[in-house]
């Protein structure tokens, strides 16, 4: 029982982090139709910028607020100057461009912050542990379990009810028609890309107290995010949520009960999902 609850919490906290990152990836794909290879690099940038802000103002909360915002600003610039040129072109152009952005960001981080490892401390309120049966469990991880759904719900409400959310959904469905009724689609696209990357940056800043920072740290997470997004259905919000939770739980329980086989499970599940539902669990059939 005890071990079950600890594994459950482990799986949930990792799953929630994955969800934040994946939902950004899936939103950008759903609206812009761009598969952003550099998404993991924005995740990395979020972590580093959070750390950098904390060097100036020694508060994790300020870092969490400002770091991802800077990421979003940079993303808006990237969309306006670079990404905009490849919409509607062959998918290879998008992949090449976003991959190039990944390389530039990874090396940029290495030049600015050096190749070494960095750690970020969790805020004092969340730094401790609480006792769980005979064990202790870090409070910060519990915070992650709750932070994910809160941000997710806010996003969902934003897309569902707000004027901007409705415009975004309209533009995703039919950009030409949306433009026809007076929605400024290019501006909207910039905003959506910035939002997607803000989520990645948020994921990075939230992950920072939990894992060490090193250049190219985003490359590890991008693979898992892709699994989540593809299995959940490209562009699907609930798909990203279910996919991320499932992957997080598979990893935590699989590690304990299955040993090495666990590594193969995400890929087997992904393959099985694609065989049964080629567009993913929540994917829309064309």
């Amino acid at each position, binding site marked *: 029982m005890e*071990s079950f609850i*600890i*594994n459950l919490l*482990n*799986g949930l*906290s*990792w799953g929630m982090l994955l969800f934040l990152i994946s939902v950004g990836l899936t939103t950008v794909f759903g609206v812009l139709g761009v598969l952003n290879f550099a998404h993991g690099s924005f995740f990395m940038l979020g972590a580093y910028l959070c750390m950098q802000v904390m060097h100036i103002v020694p508060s994790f909360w300020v870092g969490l607020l400002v770091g991802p915002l800077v990421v979003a600003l940079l993303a808006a610039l990237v969309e306006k100057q670079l990404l905009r040129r490849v919409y509607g072109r062959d998918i290879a152009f998008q992949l090449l461009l976003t991959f190039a952005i990944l390389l530039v960001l*990874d*090396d940029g981080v*290495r030049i600015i912050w*050096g*190749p*070494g*490892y*960095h*750690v970020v401390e969790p805020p004092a309120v969340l730094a401790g*542990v609480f006792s769980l049966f005979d*064990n*202790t*469990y*870090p409070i*910060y*991880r519990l915070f992650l379990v709750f932070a994910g759904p809160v941000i997710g719900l806010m996003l969902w409400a934003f897309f569902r009810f707000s004027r901007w959310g409705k415009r975004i959904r309209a533009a995703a469905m039919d950009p030409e028609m949306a433009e026809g009724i007076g929605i400024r689609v290019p501006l909207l696209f910039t905003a959506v890309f910035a939002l997607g990357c803000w989520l990645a940056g948020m994921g990075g800043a939230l*992950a920072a107290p*939990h*894992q*060490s920072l*090193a*250049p*190219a*740290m985003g*490359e*590890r*997470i991008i*693979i898992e995010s892709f699994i989540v997004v593809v299995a959940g259905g490209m562009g699907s919000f609930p798909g990203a949520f279910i996919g991320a939770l499932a992957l997080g739980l598979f*990893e*935590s*329980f699989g*590690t*304990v009960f299955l*040993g*090495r086989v666990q*590594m193969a499970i995400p890929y087997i599940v992904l393959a099985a999902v694609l065989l049964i539902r080629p567009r993913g669990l929540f994917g829309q059939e064309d």
Partner: protein
Amino acid sequence: MKMNKRLPVVFVAILLMGLVFAPLAPAATPVKIGFVYIMSGPFSAYGQFAKKGAELAVAEINAAGGINGHPVEAYFEDSTGKPDVAIRAFRKLVFQEKVNYLIGLDSSGVAKTVVPSIPQMKTPLIITHAATPDVTGSVCNRYVFRISVNLAQNVKAASLLAAETGATTWTTVGPDYAFGHQSWEYFEKYLKAIKPGMTFLPKDEVAFPPFKTTDFSPYINKVMQSKADGVLVSLWGGNLIDFVRQGKEMGLFNGKKQILITLGAAVEVLGALKDKMPEGLWVGTRYWFLANDSARNTAFVKAYHDRYGEYPSYNAHGAYGAVYTYKAAAEKAGSIDKEKIIDALEGLTVELPVGKITIRPEDHQALTDACWGKTAADPAYPIRVLKPIKIFKAADVTPSVTDAGCKK
């Protein structure tokens, strides 16, 4: 018409090239050394350390008159941690840059694949980091040497320590590739021989997290739930940093289990963790900058700290030491010829900051002491230091030539 327009440009270009390259013509033919380390990606810290160590050695040697009077030039290439890229880098260094000697290699996986193709390049290679016993064992050859502590030496020291901890049931947490698995395999083999009656958890109960893991809590949980009272940890770099922080939060280091971390005394790990590194853990390394106060070591640590503002890591020491090893071999051979250098390297004894090392002629592994210690706070240093330090003599931890299994 077109030709005529371009011709002057070509002339000017040639002229300029002459101007640029003329002053570079060296007085004596240089000795060129090619370095291949991981210079990009998540492990680029290791390449960066090696580069710092190498550049310090080259600067010192050139200021003191070079190797047998030849100035030393360093060439750095990125292995990216991939075997095929590393082989291409070596080929480029040997055939294009025409380097005399090679130094390098961080990853055991890369080393094992690259080593068999070094003889084709007819150029000696000194390995300074990759620890797999295979490169001075099953795939050893005339051209490849290693001056750093290898996995067998480090783990033999670990098992000598383990025998004294009082723990009787052992498990492991190691990276899920050859290094992690071999560390566990050798540990089991050595500890069984030193102290019979020890129990080792079977393969499916130990923890081998994949390299990309950032969340170690399931593995930590698994170890904490197991009946083992001793844990061999062979994670390194960022993996180790994450493992230690998360393990500390979850209470892994509360003293219930004996924990040995084979590469825990690496300064890049200690430097990132600072006071988050628990005290009183047994940690190993390949070189510890406070392990001896010989004049050689003191001078090296001071020169390194003056130049870079940090303490030398084992990878910095490895690359630094390898340059000096080539220098010593060239002096012994009285030549800079590649084949003569190889003959001189066999059996060579040289004093490096880590201490005196001797390269075994049979398998080309250096007999070098293994260093372990207990983490402790010291107000004089920003990082955890080792107190006490335990030095295991090379003779006590190096497998015999027969056991190493090298058939050149």
